[in-house]
């Protein structure tokens, strides 16, 4: 899972508290993939278990054992107060990061795509208006695309001054290109379906001897 590696990679900059780590992550990615703080600490705990990060000793250690209040919600299994503990990457952690950067993200198993699945099912079911599904989706995706574009042309993504801003604007571009690809795919589905319907109709008219001007 990439969040684990991303966190580890950010930790290469130096020791950080969980909150700092989350802030650094969001500095680069906006609120595209929000991290809840419980998740951050759970991940850090696992990284620690696997020997990829280690706790940095500090005087904040004294507060260990206090109950967590107000952070990350009630009932999260943080155990002792981990919010005052900072972490740094170990040697093993560093090599995991290098490995991550050196290896392409696998595409062999495409992420589950709800829209593709929805259409794949819809086209096979009688009585489902696929045209309307496509149209609604296209409007919704187009609206999202407008929102991303608005973010891109204003705010810190529009005039990046630090690398983190540039990172954020590139993440926005990624969202833009994804949404654009989806719109194109929907256009494509629509025209394929129309063509299929027209061919089916022609075949039907052939066998049944189309009366002149049978259409419209």
């Amino acid at each position, binding site marked *: 899972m990439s969040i684990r590696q991303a966190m580890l990679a950010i930790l290469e900059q130096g020791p950080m508290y969980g909150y700092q780590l989350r802030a650094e992550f969001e500095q680069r990615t906006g609120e595209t993939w929000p991290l809840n703080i419980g998740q951050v600490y759970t991940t850090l705990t696992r990284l620690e278990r696997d020997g990829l990060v280690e706790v940095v000793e500090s005087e904040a250690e004294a507060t260990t054992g206090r109950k967590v209040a107000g952070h990350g919600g009630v009932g999260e299994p943080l155990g002792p107060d981990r919010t005052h503990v900072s972490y740094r990457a170990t040697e093993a952690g560093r090599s995991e990061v290098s490995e991550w950067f050196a290896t392409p993200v696998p595409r062999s198993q495409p992420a589950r795509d709800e829209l593709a699945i929805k259409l794949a099912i819809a086209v096979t079911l009688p009585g489902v208006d696929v045209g309307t599904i496509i*149209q609604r989706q*296209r*409007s919704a*995706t*187009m*609206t999202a*695309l*407008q929102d*991303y*574009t*608005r973010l891109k*042309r204003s705010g810190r993504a529009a005039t990046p001054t630090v690398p983190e801003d540039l990172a954020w604007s590139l993440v926005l571009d990624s969202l*833009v*290109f994804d*949404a*654009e690809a989806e*719109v*194109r795919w929907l*256009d494509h589905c629509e*025209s394929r379906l129309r063509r299929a319907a027209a061919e089916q109709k022609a075949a039907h008219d052939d066998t049944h001897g189309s009366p002149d001007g049978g259409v419209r």
Partner: protein
Amino acid sequence: MNAVLHLAAVSRVHGAGATEVHALRSVTFRAHPGELVAVMGPSGSGKSTLLTLAGGLDAPTAGSVWIEGTDLASLDNAGRARMRRTSVGYVFQDFNLIPALTAAENVALPRELDGEKGKIARRLALTALEEVGIVDLADRFPDEMSGGQQQRVAIARAIVGERRLILADEPTGALDTDTGEEILRLLRARCDAGAAGVMVTHEARHAAWADRVVFLRDGVVVDETGADEPEALLAGEAGR
């Protein structure tokens, strides 16, 4: 707020009888000051037809086209031509620059045709070229410029002298991502400054710069995103 452009139940039929083509079927469409509208749709869906009707380059077979409250059908040819030169800026897909004229002369032409003195027309042209970032190329001829630069000249010509309605047919057509985005930035800035813009594009990424996206199919508006009520626009709530 009054629409700068209003197409009221506009239809355009080409030919007659068996070869009849319904390029647009009773389309109603408005563009308001400060608004950039994108028109998308498959090839042959009527996008260019909509734009040429809006610009008074073609006349509807039914319905009416209003620009700033004037019904184009009420104007004679001279009146329509004048409207095109003074109120409407048109960016053609293939730039349509005149090869024998420099960038500045191309941009100044509509103003000169409208009776502006040469010197003043040139000054306006330089201002427009400045706005699109190529004032240093003012004295070059079209064949001495890249596609992106020519497209900027075409845009400068469309915006010269406070035109209130800007119509652009695939203005980013053959341009790379960065140059295309630069053109959109210009159109956007012009609309933010109060003009109404209508842009035909087949790229969703470019349409996303608009406040509203209209989808055409077979001459009919089938869908629309971000359709703010004109009242909301008036109240300044449309910025989102």
